[in-house]
């Protein structure tokens, strides 16, 4: 049963999600380019249309990893373990993109590629947590043991997401510093910019679902290949 679905050439759902994602991305690209420049940042604001969606998908992916890790601990199905790994993988890629685009934006805006802003620091820490997740996966040969250990790290690591976020909030409220907030653009955002941002958010989310599904199928084939002599 599982084998039959595996060997089907391509899953229509993957094509649907990816197709919708690419179409929305095209629309998002159009809206992003037609949106007006920001009063303070000028055209630099366009980086936001990539930066915010990648960061959003990164966090979404880590919550996906949490979801599938919990599901694995409860149900003990290999599928959940594979999907947790796929989610974490995509989360790393998108969070890496978010950090990269963020530093490209930071150089002309703040004058530096990197500052020790709490949000930046906690994001970097989050990145390291999931690098550790994959180092752990690579270190364990036995699939069941690997799945169990990875689920543990996936769950604890995801708990760090809201904790890091809260610590950012607490830090600010403690210090009362007027640090540059990456999200300030959203408060005073003009309708065309909001539209561009929303369309891009939708596009990246759709692409994420499509890629995750596709990657999950590839992971399944890899697992089946390992089993067969």
């Amino acid at each position, binding site marked *: 049963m599982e084998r039959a679905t595996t060997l089907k050439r391509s899953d229509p759902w993957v094509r649907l999600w990816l197709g919708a994602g690419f179409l929305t991305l095209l629309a998002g690209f159009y809206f992003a380019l037609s949106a007006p420049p920001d009063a303070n940042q000028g055209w630099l604001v366009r980086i936001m249309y990539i930066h915010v969606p990648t960061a959003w998908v990164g966090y979404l992916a880590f919550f996906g990893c949490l979801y599938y890790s919990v599901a694995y601990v409860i149900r003990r199905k290999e599928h959940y373990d594979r999907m947790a790994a796929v989610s974490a993988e995509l989360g790393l890629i998108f969070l890496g993109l978010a950090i990269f685009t963020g530093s490209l934006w930071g150089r002309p805006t703040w004058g530096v590629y990197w500052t020790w802003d709490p949000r930046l620091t906690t994001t970097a820490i989050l990145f390291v947590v999931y690098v550790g997740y994959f180092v752990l996966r690579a270190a364990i040969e036995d699939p069941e043991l690997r799945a169990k250990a990875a689920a543990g790290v996936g769950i604890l690591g995801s708990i760090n997401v809201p904790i890091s976020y809260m610590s950012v909030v607490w830090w600010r409220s*403690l210090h009362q510093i007027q640090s540059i907030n990456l999200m300030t653009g959203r408060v005073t955002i003009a309708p065309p910019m909001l539209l561009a941002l929303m369309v891009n958010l939708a596009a990246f989310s759709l692409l994420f679902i499509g890629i995750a599904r596709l990657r999950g199928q590839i992971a399944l084939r890899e697992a089946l290949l390992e089993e067969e002599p």
Partner: protein
Amino acid sequence: MIGQAPKPRLLARSFWLAWRDLVLELRGRSGLLAAVFFLATVLLILGLALGPAPRQLAQAAPGVLWVALALAGSLLANRAFGLEVEDGTLEQLLLLPGEREWIYFGKLLFQFSLQVSVGLVLLVLTAGLFYLPLAAWPGIILTLVLGSLGYASISTFYAGLLVRLRGREVLLPLLLFPLVVPVVLAAVRATAGLAQGDWSEVGAWWRLLGSFDVIYVTVCALLFPGILEGG
């Protein structure tokens, strides 16, 4: 060691497990002594690196204290399950009837006691070498207790997770450090506030540490039996 009560008394079990580990640790000596001397070396190197100006050293002292303690914690974490695996006693622990959370709590208590005792030694050393003001010492000790509990909750969990793995000595710090950053950060801030006599933020950092402790201990205790099971 464990009482012959008809119903397993899990709290007592946890306590006796921690007690046994502590006795073994004190008799063996090598682990604790090595950790303390390693830390003394770290402090000397940091002292040299940061320069001889007393004011700079005093400013860096809270950070030095907690970085050294975090390093010590990753050394000590390997002690939590190291002997169990060497002597093959982990299977016997797992064979005992009842839920397995008590193993986690026992090991946590053990790690916590080690962490706090090493922390106290470190505190005295940092006060001497880095001129950390100890006027508010009850507050600093409370910070030490809260921070050590948060640190130990995660280090114990990961030590149990990696117990049968080769190369765990390298993996453990890699997994452990990113997760304990919030705890270390809050502890450093609270210690710095206490050292400078600026109490305005200390309460907030304590609350933060307290909530980390509650969350980490709860989640780790819930997950631990599922992770350890069967090994």
